């Protein structure tokens, strides 16, 4: 069995999943100021009276790191940045202890200017004096040649508890994002480590010595051990949990929208042929643009608890803020949920309060209460669908770089929408009418996110570049560099990258029999010197497809509304 736990803004959802479906599900209130307690309580309750040896693993999706960074509750770290020519690296300053240093590597990975050992040693002493324990080291084009980052890390050596190098976080080119991501990893490291060490210890005390996994923003998992080097991967796993929860119910060969309608926000994601669309570069977190692989999700500030008001032009306004729960549940401001109560979609609550709230809105608008409720509801549905349209058009307007792709002009046009989240069933009918798409509500919609966390497969990505002129194949992120012969081919490159991907996936906690690998990008260029071909430049990116773990991929059959 697997435990899936997803910490949400108001509730922490936990499920215990067996091959035959949900064995147990619970909700505990989330205490943002004491996430440890929320997580532990959830895990204790779900395992109560269950034989620990029957549980294979626990997958956690928390807001720990996201909150720490957004609220800037992170420790000081040191950042050493080697840029060479280009935009002034001062623009990418992350924090107080940020040091641009000498050294330069060019786009093919050739050293242009060496690093300066004395300069680094001096900085090391400075940082040490300041009590800094964690340092990030980032170089421009380090994914083409990591030696500068490695040498700087070596010089820093035993001065510090842990050093984070930029080339290990992603094979993608983007120096500013590499800086931001390395900074996040370094700063989040102690928070992540102490939190999960504590969880592990508490569970062990209770005899629950079960392998733990973390859900990442890309809808895949990674083992807790592997995650400590890259704690940034755990940010924004919430939307990913929901999408993975909806995935068993998505059509196999079609494009499909997933809407996770919550109290405050609605998250939108897209599945193509059962695979979620990934963000092409990396996730944005507050002011930080990162290289962290994530699902392409879009969040809009409309949910069940969005407050409703009428502005000075007697225009109805739904959202974006949430001012507590719906009046039906003791709140003081009318909300979308109250409109749903008036429309008879929600019963079992304090209907009178809802009616009173919506009445006041109707009065300001000069229309009957029912009509006001309908307007509020439509307004919310339309706002969500507008955002869906925007997101599709954004995905479709992504530039392409080959004639083949321009001519093919592939455009997504989803015909199905899946809904999850608390208010999902109330929205389904109207969303279907307004969108013209088929709309389905994911069974157990209220815990689908925790189910998603539980059944997500371990994912990772590998980028490989092979340069037969310079005679090497390199995957800096994997610490891989090998001499290659002049006849090294695309087939060889795919083979090598799959080998690296397999090793990496297993290290990150994947099961060897469950590695669905695919090449997501491949280019090959003839390099020409003078008028002769001097070599080939091959670039490959391969991934483990985000998906569901073996044995649980037919879970849809066991879940019904």
């Amino acid at each position, binding site marked *: 069995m697997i435990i899936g736990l997803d910490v949400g803004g108001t509730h922490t959802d936990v499920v215990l999943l067996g091959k035959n479906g949900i064995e147990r599900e619970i909700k505990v209130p989330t205490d943002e100021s004491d996430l440890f307690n929320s997580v532990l309580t959830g895990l204790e309750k779900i395992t109560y009276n269950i034989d620990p040896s029957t549980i294979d693993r626990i997958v956690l999706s928390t807001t720990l790191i996201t909150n720490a960074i957004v609220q800037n509750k992170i420790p000081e770290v040191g950042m050493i940045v080697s840029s060479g*020519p280009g935009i002034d690296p001062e623009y990418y*300053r992350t924090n107080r202890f940020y040091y641009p240093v000498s050294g330069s590597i060019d786009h093919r990975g050739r050293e242009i200017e060496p690093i300066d050992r004395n300069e680094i040693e001096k900085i090391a002493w400075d940082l040490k004096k300041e009590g800094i324990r964690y340092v990030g080291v980032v170089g421009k084009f380090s994914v083409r040649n990591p030696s500068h980052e490695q040498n700087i890390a070596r010089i820093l050596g035993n001065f510090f508890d842990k050093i984070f190098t930029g080339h290990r976080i992603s094979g993608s080119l983007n120096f500013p994002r590499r800086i931001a991501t390395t900074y996040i990893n370094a700063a989040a490291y102690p928070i992540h480590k102490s939190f999960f060490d504590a969880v592990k210890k508490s569970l062990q005390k209770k005899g629950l010595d079960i392998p733990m996994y973390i859900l990442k923003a890309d809808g895949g998992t990674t083992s807790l051990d592997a995650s400590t080097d890259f704690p940034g991967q755990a940010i924004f796993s919430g939307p990913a949990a929901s999408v993975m929860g909806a995935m068993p119910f998505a059509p196999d060969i079609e494009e499909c929208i997933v809407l996770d309608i919550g109290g405050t926000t609605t998250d939108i994601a897209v599945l193509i042929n059962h695979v979620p669309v990934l963000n092409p570069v990396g996730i944005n977190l507050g002011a930080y643009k990162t290289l962290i692989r994530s699902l392409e999700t879009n969040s809009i500030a409309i949910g069940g608890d969005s407050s409703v008001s009428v502005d000075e032009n007697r225009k109805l306004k739904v959202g974006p803020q949430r001012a507590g729960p719906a009046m039906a549940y003791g709140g003081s401001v009318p909300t979308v949920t109250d409109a749903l109560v008036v429309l008879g979609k929600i019963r079992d609550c304090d209907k009178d309060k809802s009616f009173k709230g919506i009445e006041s809105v109707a009065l300001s608008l000069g229309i009957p209460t029912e009509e006001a409720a309908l307007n509020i509801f439509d307004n919310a549905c339309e706002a969500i669908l507008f955002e869906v349209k925007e997101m599709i058009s954004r995905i479709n307007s992504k530039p392409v770089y080959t004639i083949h792709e321009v001519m093919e002009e592939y455009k997504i046009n989803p015909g199905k929408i899946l809904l999850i989240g608390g208010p999902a069933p109330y929205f389904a009918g109207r969303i279907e009418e307004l969108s013209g798409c088929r709309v389905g509500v994911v069974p157990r919609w209220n815990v689908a996110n925790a189910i998603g966390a539980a059944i997500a497969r371990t994912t990772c990505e590998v980028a490989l570049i092979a340069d037969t002129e310079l005679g090497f194949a390199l995957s800096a992120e994997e610490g891989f560099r090998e001499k290659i012969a002049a006849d090294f081919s695309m087939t060889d490159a795919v083979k090598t990258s799959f080998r690296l991907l397999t090793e990496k996936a297993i290290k990150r906690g994947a099961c060897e029999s469950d590695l669905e690998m695919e090449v997501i990008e491949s280019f090959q260029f003839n390099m020409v010197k003078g008028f002769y071909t001097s070599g080939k430049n091959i670039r490959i990116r391969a991934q483990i497809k985000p998906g569901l773990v073996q044995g649980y991929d037919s879970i849809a059959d066991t879940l019904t509304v």
Partner: protein
Amino acid sequence: MKLAAEHKTGLVFFPAFDWAISPTHPEREERLLYTQDQVLEEGLLDIEGIEELKPEIVTEQDVTRVHFCVPDVKHVMTESHFISAGCAKTIGKAVLDKKVKRGFSLARPPGHHAMRVVLGARGFCNVNVEAIMIEYLRKEYNIRKVAVVDTDCHHGDGTQDIYWHDPDTLFISLHQDGRTLYPGSGFPYELGGPNAVGTTVNIPLPPHTSDEGFLYVTKNVVMPILDDFKPEIIINSAGQDNHFTDPITKMNFSAQGYAALTSILKPDIAVLEGGYSIEGALPYVNLGIILAMSGIDYSRVKEPLYDPDRYRQTPEVTMNIEKTGETVLSYWQNRNKIAERMRDKKDFDERKRNIYYDTDNIREQQKETVKICPDCAGALRIDSTSDRGARLLAVHIPLRACGKCRELGYIWYHSADPSSYDMVFLQDRTEDKYLKG
């Protein structure tokens, strides 16, 4: 410190990773690979105010508005040309729709050697990307006066040919002296046809001209002429083969120089042309141009091993450039007098030319006749034969043609003797109508 563009800048990036003239041709798949690497690694597309746009494809009508394609559009263009021209069009639209303040199309293949008649490829170019964009913008946005400043190392003879008779298009070309480089033209005395004397401006520069020389003519020759002409938009044909590392030219221009030139010129639209130092120059030059266009500090952009002392120009080169500048300015100042002399009470002006398509090895002979007209750019007829056999007559009625010239164009077109010509073309720009017989 916050990094943001001072001017909202649109970029279209189309490296055509699956197209080459031939596997080892300089115009090949790899050409923009390292530029893309540099652009991505610098994180340019994340900068606030820099926006990447998805290119559209030009239509056949967009092409026939500019070119006489023989035998037709589809035969002289590949998909890559439709996209490359589409990239410029995308940028042009974004600028005139005010979605962005400025824009740069980094696409290939280039276009500035393509002339009005197209039998094949010249200097790696099949169709003129800038002209296709300009004529589209004139039609859709009703703009009139346009300036093209061509900073490719090779003379932009195609653009010059297309706008030779058009007084509303100022074409300025800075290039390595035609006596030392393909295509061998672009001398100061090439001033445009009798209806457009002076609006073709050629500034040949001696080999080994460095930043100093380029910036000198930009400030002292190009800018004063632009200020006089007062164009509604300025387009930069941004070839990058003046770079000191370029394998097929002999100039000493640097990334800093290109960026400085861009910030002096302030083009609304830049379109990449040539440039074949794909590792040592393009990544840095393009970075410099993008930063300069968007108004971001480019002072730290420097190609590896650039040593300004090594590439400083000699006093002889400086003197040569200053002299050329004087000549060019004096032509510009006296353009009305020269025009009077050229028109010389004639009704028509004729010129005969041999045109060589080096890429496709075609030799064409043209006899061009233009109506000397005080009211418009004048009806134009081109009688062309080539070693490919076909003889054609191409008639062009300019956009703001007067009634008489328009009528004359149709007379030429309809009275062409079918036994003499294999093909007869008509471009009626006044009606955006294109005929072929």
